């Protein structure tokens, strides 16, 4: 069976399998035999979880360069393993790092790269990727025409499922030769941010996003998000103002989200904001200006003051639940 390489990053990681990786493994299994490449250590927990996903072979490296330099050494690792197992495909998560590894593996293996895949199907051995392009205005099907296919896959592309049979993976430690330029961009400091405890934006079923209309106070948005179990997003105006972390920005230069429900609050709906949210299933907008472009794409719009509408909705949800 053809080898499908799945990359899992365990540098500064928890030692467990992230849900996105589980999805990639499910996908890989449907197309061939998943061979897992890990940057960093393979904990007992991780090995056991990989076994549940039917992974028989794990190759990993704990070389310090993988942690000390920006991304390129990880790409060297993935490319060298993919070449050595004659992989027909390499699957990566669609994070900035995942896409950068994809780009580099593409050059190293003369392989076509497709990013931002929302689904991947196996058609007689060819992997067909579906992705949304031009800010969600088209859905395209694309494929690589090279011997090796490299795809970075967005989360929720498939429902993660355990393999029919659990195996005990063989874990092999390897040493990679790094390209000279791969050791050129050194990480001299890492500063962690505290986690909000809320769902991740790109994973969330519901997103409540706030904009300049919040006037510095994200309280109403956070309270609504918390009663709905939602992630909190923001417009660039709100992140630029420093009211919330830049990681919360939704849009052309922020996160691209397509949740079941996107509640836009005090956001005008500029083209760059729409680029990150208009593929959401249902859009609700609260804005005091009836002329705001956001209303052109809202399934349900409220022209009103967010500081009145949101607290009332929060109270009503709590009342109905009690």
């Amino acid at each position, binding site marked *: 069976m053809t080898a499908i390489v799945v990359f899992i990053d365990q540098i500064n990681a928890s030692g467990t399998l992230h849900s996105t990786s589980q999805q990639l493994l499910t996908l890989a299994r449907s197309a061939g035999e998943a061979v897992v490449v890990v940057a960093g250590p393979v904990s007992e927990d991780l090995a056991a979880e990989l076994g549940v996903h039917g992974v028989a072979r794990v190759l990993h490296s704990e070389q310090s360069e993988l942690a000390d330099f*920006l991304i*390129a050494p990880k790409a060297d690792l993935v490319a060298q393993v993919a070449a050595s197992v004659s992989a027909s495909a390499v699957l990566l998560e669609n994070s*900035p790092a995942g896409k*950068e590894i994809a*780009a*580099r593996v*593409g*050059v*190293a293996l003369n392989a*076509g*790269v497709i990013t*931002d895949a929302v689904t991947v199907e196996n058609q007689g051995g060819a992997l067909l990727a579906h992705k949304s*392009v031009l*800010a*969600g*205005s*088209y*859905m*395209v*099907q694309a*494929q690589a*025409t090279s011997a090796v296919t490299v795809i970075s896959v967005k989360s929720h592309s498939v429902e993660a499922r355990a393999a029919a049979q659990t195996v005990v993976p063989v874990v092999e430690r390897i040493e990679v030769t790094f*390209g000279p*330029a*791969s*050791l*050129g*961009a*050194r*990480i*001299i*400091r*890492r*500063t*962690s*941010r505290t986690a909000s405890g809320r769902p*991740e934006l790109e994973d969330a079923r519901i997103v409540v996003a706030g904009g300049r209309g919040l006037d510095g106070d994200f309280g109403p948005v956070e309270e609504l998000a918390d009663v709905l179990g939602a992630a909190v997003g923001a417009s*660039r105006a709100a992140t630029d103002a420093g009211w919330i972390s*830049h*990681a919360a920005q939704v849009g052309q*230069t922020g996160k691209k989200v397509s949740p*079941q*429900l996107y509640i836009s609050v005090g956001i005008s709906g500029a*083209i*760059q904001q729409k680029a990150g949210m208009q593929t959401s299933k249902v*859009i*609700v907008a*609260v804005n005091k200006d*009836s002329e705001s472009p956001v*209303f*052109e*794409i*809202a399934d*349900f*719009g*409220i022209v*009103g003051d967010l500081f009145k*509408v949101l607290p*009332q909705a929060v109270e009503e949800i709590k009342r*109905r639940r009690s």
Partner: protein
Amino acid sequence: MENAALNIVVLVKYVPDTQFDRHLTGENHRLDRNESILSELDEYALEAALAITDDRGGAKAGNFVTALTLGPASAVAAVKKSLQIGATSGVHVSDEALAGSDAWSTSLALAAAVRTLGPVDLIITGMSSTDGETSLVPTQLAARLGLPAITFASSLELDGTTVTARRDGDDVSEDIQATLPVLVSVTDQANEPRYPNFKGILAAKKKKITTLSLADIGLSADAVGHIGSLTRVDSAAERPARTAGTIITDAGDAGIQLVDFLAAQKLI
């Protein structure tokens, strides 16, 4: 030590204006490039280059900022705009055979073009194009040229030959250091791009734009374009445009109506 003059290349792309509807056309589902402009994300790359060279005495001190584009004849407009903003010269890689190039063959041609420009200290790009939006080309260009890459820099400083940049991830920020030559892609957090002024627009008319064909950069037609690319788009379906739904004006109970709506949609 005196800082040496810099040779900086900025990648600029001519892309359909995102303010208008954009369309895929023809058998190969190529992007209709009418109503195109210099990608707004490349303005941040230009600004980063100009800020660095301004610091070192600008063009007068022998610093070069070359705006490099690859695209059809009309794409020269992106170079011209870059010259108005302040780039010192332009290079336009243009050849019929390049049409339909994916990231893999675009980066191949850009690498070949950069090699014709002599020793380059710094290549600066935007964080992504606003049309393809893959962010693949900067990294692939660096890989092909054997340069270290710092992607998604939200700040960029040059001290002597040492580049320092910050990258803001979801749960961690990283400070990155590299020594020239290096490729950096900058985000829209990196700076505030300048606009072309009257003087800049006049000065641009005298600046040189070099057009390079595939032969000039030493590539054959089958290495690039539709033939050389390693990906292909099989089909494209336009999504129906979103339409406005129910819009209400708050009369004191909009919060409750919002909950009614969510309940009716089975979202709570």
